[in-house]
Every structure is written in structure tokens, then in C-alpha cells.
């Protein structure tokens, strides 16, 4: 059986992390496949015309490992190999990384096209939470 059933959980109910964007971003939800494309830099523009700027966590962080496993079904190591491949064949580099919730929230507040994720419960009202559909 190859197909996985579709589930939809509100961002606030996720145990591990919540995906956040700039407060003025009109997007309210994303399918997990679109979230994959965003963090693989395959989707470059938001529907409202803003450039997508994904920001990731440092590779050693727990939240990065959980995000990688649940969104990509890959380990952080496998994703590092994916980015070597993308770099060579497509000229694409992985998203920039930051090391703390505070830094990430600050970045998202300041950059209209930014998208990132933080551990559940550490988000605040300066950013907007996205509903991710179909998350593993």
C-alpha cells in the first residue's frame, strides 16, 4: 500500500513545531508537499508576489531533526546530501540557518516573505502560524 492517508492538524496542535510566516502574509495553510517545495527552494514566490525566504534551524537542533523527519521523511543527513546534489546540478543552496527561536522570530517579523518553524509553544503574536495539511 503506497498511499498515505491525508490528515490535517492545526499548527497549534502539533506536538513538535509550528510553521510561522510574516504576520501580513495572506497564506493561512499549506499542504505538506508545498512546504517541502518551499524548504527545497523549488517554490520561489508566494501567491501574492513576495519572494519566499525559508529559514532553517542549525543542523544539530532537535526541532530541525523532527522537521526533517516529519516533513521530508528524510534524516538531516539525507537532506544534507540532497543539498549537495541541488548545489551541483541546480545551483541552489540550502536555506540559511539560525540557532534560536528568538532569532528566527525576529527574522520572520522583519522579512515579509520569510517562512520558518519554531518549537511548539515558543511562537508569539508577532508572527502568523500556518496550518500544515497532511503532515506525517
Amino acid at each position, binding site marked *: 500500500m503506497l*498511499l498515505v492517508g491525508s490528515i490535517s492538524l492545526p499548527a497549534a496542535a502539533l506536538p513538535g513545531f509550528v510553521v510561522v510566516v510574516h504576520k501580513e502574509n495572506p497564506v493561512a495553510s499549506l499542504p505538506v*508537499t508545498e512546504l517541502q517545495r518551499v524548504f527545497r527552494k523549488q517554490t*520561489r514566490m508566494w501567491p501574492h508576489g513576495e*519572494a519566499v525566504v525559508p529559514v532553517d534551524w542549525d543542523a544539530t537542533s532537535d526541532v530541525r531533526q523532527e522537521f526533517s523527519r516529519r516533513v521530508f*521523511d528524510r*534524516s538531516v543527513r539525507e537532506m544534507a546530501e540532497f543539498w549537495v*546534489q541541488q*548545489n551541483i546540478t541546480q545551483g*541552489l543552496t540550502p536555506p540559511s540557518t539560525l540557532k534560536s527561536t528568538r532569532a528566527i522570530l525576529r527574522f520572520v517579523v522583519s522579512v515579509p516573505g520569510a517562512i520558518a518553524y519554531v518549537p511548539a509553544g515558543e511562537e508569539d503574536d508577532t508572527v502568523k502560524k500556518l496550518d500544515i495539511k*497532511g503532515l506525517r
Partner: protein
Amino acid sequence: MKRSLWLVVAAMCAVSQPAWAQQDDVARLRAELQRQQEVIGQLLKRLDEVEKKQALTATSEEVKAEAETQQEAVESVRESLLSRVNLNGYYNFRFAADESPAPASFQQHHLGLLLGKQLKKFNFHMELELQNVPHHPQIHGEEGGGEEGGETPEGTDVSGEGQVAVENAWMEYAHNRLLNVRVGKQLSPQYWWQNHYPNLTLSTDQPIYLRELFPPELVGLMVHGTAAKPSGGSELALNYKFYLSNNQFEGNSQADLRDAKSWGGRVQVRLPTGGRLKRFDVAGDLYRGRIALVTQELVEDHVYGVESQIEVDRFQLQAEYARGRTLGETRYGYYVQPALRVTDTWTTFYRIEQLDSPRIQRAELRHLAGLNFRPYAQIALKAEYYRGVPQQRSFIESEEDRRPFNGFAAAAVFFF
């Protein structure tokens, strides 16, 4: 005398206060002292409050300054994100020895520099490749230009100094997921050509069939895109690529100027994944072009192929098959490569591959088994053993060329 004493006592009594009057004074002094202490306490309290207010004022100023600094830092990061030029590269050093007449050799196989820039919907990518493969006869004749897959005419460059080549130089406009346009020099869309880089392959050398079927690269225009339908945490996707390009570009600028163009296409289906199935791709490829013979005469060349990449848990399978036809002669080749990722860093693999081409008088079946150690995503150490078994074909006349041979190769690869 007695009278005098009584007078002194009477006078002292007259100037001194009684005991009850002294007690009243003490009580009054105590009350005054207490009141003064309360006043001092209130003053200290007010002093604390004033000091706190002063401290608060300083903190808010500091916070404001910090906020401005952070804002600048964010702007700086944003600036760098949007305007950064990416500079990367890779280096591949290889050792190969087999039972051919060629001596065992160390080869500085590749040194590649990658330059890229992304600006909203536009993307530019360039790869400058410096190759320095010593041109031993075996490599010269059989490898046919090494990783590039082209044929190098015998008797040319035997200096061993290698060559510098622009392997990729293209600009892409990504309109949306369905429509992207790429122009410039680019790799052919088949899986191995797209991923033939030493960092991305398990083996030190590429499958022999690639030397004679699809051209390795093209100069022209490619339109590509993806249509997808979500399926759980995955999706069913249809990728397409169509291109129009010059004929037989490589090493022959005259062919660039000819009117006849080649064209080709590729359709790939990416099946939904889930559970242990991490990848299931199937694709079909088509190429129609003209190829210049030694006489520079252009003749029709048709190639088609199928391929698949499957990944289940730690097991990977890659396979490609292609068949070509030129001047009534058919050539074909394939490879099948199963691999097992034993740990995050160790992968073992086996590959069977075959090429049968009257055009270059070569028909060989090859077995290859190897280990790939990747301590970091950017570094790979490879070792492999291979056995080539020439096939019985009328166009192979030399007895030496009919003998099986064994070989060993190892490589170190660094991506930076």
C-alpha cells in the same frame, strides 16, 4: 556648717528636674528619633524608586538600540540572501588499474567550480570544469573523453595537461511550477547525465553505455515543468522536459552552425511514496538529431530510453536502458545498479552494465561491485572492483579485445 550644707542641697533641688520630668524627655526624644527614622526610610524608599526609574530608562534605551542593531542584522541577512552569489566546487582524485595495456595511474579526474545566482524567478548556474586525466592509450581509446562521454580523436592532445571546459552555463526563468524555460549549455535530461558528478554517484566511473547513446549535453532551449496531485504526505507528479538544441555540440563548433537542429523530450512519473517507500520514479526519453561522421556528413540519429529509480528504506535501485539507430545500425546499452545503504556513511553496491555498438566496434558486459564511504555529505571515498567481458561480435576483430579483464579503481571526492 550644717546650715551651709542644707542651702547647697536646696539650691540643687531648685535647678534640677524631678525624675518623672526626665522620663518625659526621654520619651519625647525617642518619638522624635522614630519620626526621623520614618522620614529617612521614606527618603530611602523614594531614592530607590528614583534609582529604579533611572535604571528603567536606561534599559529601554538599550533595548531600542539593540532592536535597531538586530533590525540591521536582519536586513543584512536579507540582503545577503537575496543578492548572494554562490561559489562552490568539487574535486575528484582517482586511481585506476586494470589488465589493459594502460599502466595503473593516478588521475586528477575533475576539479569543478560552480557559480550560481538566484534572483526571484531567475536563476543562473555555471560550471567550469578542469579535467586532467593522463591520456594513456586505454583511456584515450576506450574511455572516449572520460566523464564527458564524447569521443576524442586519436592522436590529439596527449600532453596530459588536461582541458578546461564550460560544462554548464544556463539561465532559467521559473514562471511557475508548470512552466520553466532554461537556455544555454546544459546537461541532457537523463538521470545519470544529470547526476553524473563524482559527489553524487556511488562508483568512480560511469556506466559504459552512456558513451554511445544519448548525447551528454546540449546547447539550446529547454522547457520543463511539473504537474502534481497531492496524495497524503506525498504526491503523484508528472515532470516533462522538451528541448531544441544544436547537433553534436561537443568538440565540434562547426556542427553548431548547421541548420539542422536536434530535439528531444522526457516524461517522468513520480509515484506517491509513504511508509518504507521513499522514491519510485519512472521515465521515458526520446532524442532525434543528426550526428556528424568522420567525413563531417550529418546523418540521422534516433535514440530512445527508459529508466527508473526506486528507494525502499535503505535499498536503492537505479536502472536505465537506451537504444539508438544510425544509418541502419542499431546500438543499445543499459545498467542496473542495486545498492544498500548499510549505515548513514557506508553504502555497498553492485552494477551490471552492457554496451553493444557497431559504431565504435565495442560490445562489452561489465560487472562492478564497490563500497562508498561518505563520512560527511560533502566527502566520499570510493573503491570498486570490475570485470569486463567483451561480447562475441563480428566487428571485434582483435583477439586481445576479446579477452575478459579485471580492474580496480578508487577515488576521493570533496565538495566545497
